[in-house]
């Protein structure tokens, strides 16, 4: 497990550092060269409109990572109160009203929802984060509810209630704190899932400009030149693979640690 932790950390460090610090080192955009060329002072060649690929790589990670982070945080922001309320209420009908609609929503394929909205409006980066968060809420709320329901059935909660503690102290002070550990582990897994969705949506052209500096957009737009100049596709694709793969290895290692303690 320790080996997996280290391996995951190493694999995810390269794309993550590049995504967060890359824009600082990108420098000025040089003059545009011919499309899909190699050499000529361009370390990784040029892309479909003649921009330097290395510079695009430095710039292109930030949007993917930030949109995914924002979407994960937003999903929890809604799912946390929803799940806690459903787990702690004594009114069966309230739990049904809160959770049943989510069961129904879970059946709709997530990418489909995003494409549906994209057919009517053109979402920007913020819109994409919102959309992905909405799609992720049902599953996140179910996890929160399951974790909180388990804690809420413990004798400690019963004792708090009999002492006459307020709902707020019981829900946030005790149950909320007890489930935090489970949720931190779940957040890692959820983040990689969100990363998958954000990158796939960007690849399909949702939430990004057609010439945006974004790893997923680079893979899509430079595909036409794959046979002439593969680096413009292979480098961003490898970075996305490393980011998602390493992220999942790391999240799983963290999950295993929590389970044992």
């Amino acid at each position, binding site marked *: 497990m320790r080996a997996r932790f280290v391996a995951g950390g190493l694999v995810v460090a390269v794309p993550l550092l590049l995504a967060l610090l890359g824009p600082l080192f990108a420098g000025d955009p040089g003059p545009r060269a011919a499309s899909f060329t190699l050499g000529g002072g361009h370390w990784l060649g040029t892309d479909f409109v003649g921009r330097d690929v290395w510079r695009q790589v430095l710039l292109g990670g930030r949007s993917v990572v930030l949109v995914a982070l924002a979407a994960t945080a937003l999903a929890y922001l809604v799912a946390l109160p929803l799940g806690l309320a459903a787990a702690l209420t004594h009114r069966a009908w309230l739990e049904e009203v809160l959770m049943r609609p989510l069961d129904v929503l879970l059946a709709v394929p997530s990418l489909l929802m995003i494409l549906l909205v994209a*057919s009517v409006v053109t979402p920007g980066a913020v819109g994409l984060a919102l959309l992905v968060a909405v799609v992720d809420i049902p599953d996140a709320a179910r996890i929160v509810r399951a974790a909180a329901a388990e804690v809420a059935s413990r004798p400690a909660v019963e004792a708090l209630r009999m002492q006459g503690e307020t709902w707020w102290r019981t829900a946030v002070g005790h149950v909320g704190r007890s489930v935090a550990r489970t949720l931190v582990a779940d957040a890692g897994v959820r983040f990689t899932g969100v990363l998958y969705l954000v990158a796939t949506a960007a690849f399909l052209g949702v939430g990004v400009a057609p010439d945006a500096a974004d790893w997923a957009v680079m893979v899509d737009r430079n595909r036409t030149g794959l046979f002439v100049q593969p680096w413009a596709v*292979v480098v961003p694709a490898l970075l996305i693979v490393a980011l998602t793969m390493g992220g999942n290895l790391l999240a799983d290692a963290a999950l295993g640690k929590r389970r044992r303690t």
Partner: protein
Amino acid sequence: MTGLASWTARRLLLGAAQTAAVVLLVFALTEALPGDAAVALAGDQPDPERIAAVRKALDLDRPAHERLLEWAGGLLHGDFGTSLASGRPVSTYLTGGFGPTLLLASLTLVLLVPAGVGLGVLAARHEGRFTDRLVSSVTLGVYAVPEFAFGVLLTTVFALRLGWLPPTAVGYGTDLLAHPSALVLPVLVLLSRPVCSLARLVRAGMIDALASPYVAQARRHGVTGARLRYGHALPNAIAPAAQQLARTVDWLLCGVIVVEALYVIPGLGTVLMNAVAERDVPVVQGLAVVFGVTAVVLNLGADLVVRRFAPRAEVAA
């Protein structure tokens, strides 16, 4: 049996509610958005003529609930409306893209089960040893990778460097079966994520089953090898995996859209992406209903089958 009967009734009810929700959601997301839908749909430079044409084609002057009822009523007897872009009935779009998508999905499903179960059993047999660690790490890693990134790398290696396989299905039309080499990469990419999740679940279930008292008893009776693993342990390990298999339908539908875009296969995913780009709302609605209802029905079917064979398994309904 009354427990089973009432559970089945509740599960069927949930399925019906989910189907209704899909239809409602598709309508709400595409037509009931705030603002004037006609202006949004007319494109980047809306001229009054185009706006008026869109408004007339979609009947936007009538109240939303009337349009919803009429559209949903049409769906019931297979009338999906007509395309905004071409004026052709939406059903011709559906039948046109159906073949390649069905071929891709069924090929993937046929290969998915033996590959996932095989890998899972292999890892469980060698629990804790090198093979297990290798299979577990690889499945865990690949499981999170978006299809497009994985697919592009496979294309670079097998089509560009080695030249073994065609890079796309361009020029083969809808008759893909006649060109099996063009199908290898798309199916491989579609398999990547579901195989990993299935293998991980089968591994976990097999490890539990192999350590259980009834398998120990079978061992004492002299049952060994493949018969012990596949005849005794596997059936009990498979129930949670079968349920997960239905959940992966979601991924498969998403995967099909990406893979068709990546390998230029003229299936339903490509039709959907073209319609999204052209803002052809009736076509998008029709495809979304087909995709959404397929997901609901397959999930329902899997839950019913699992409940029938493993009544102890917890199935939410």
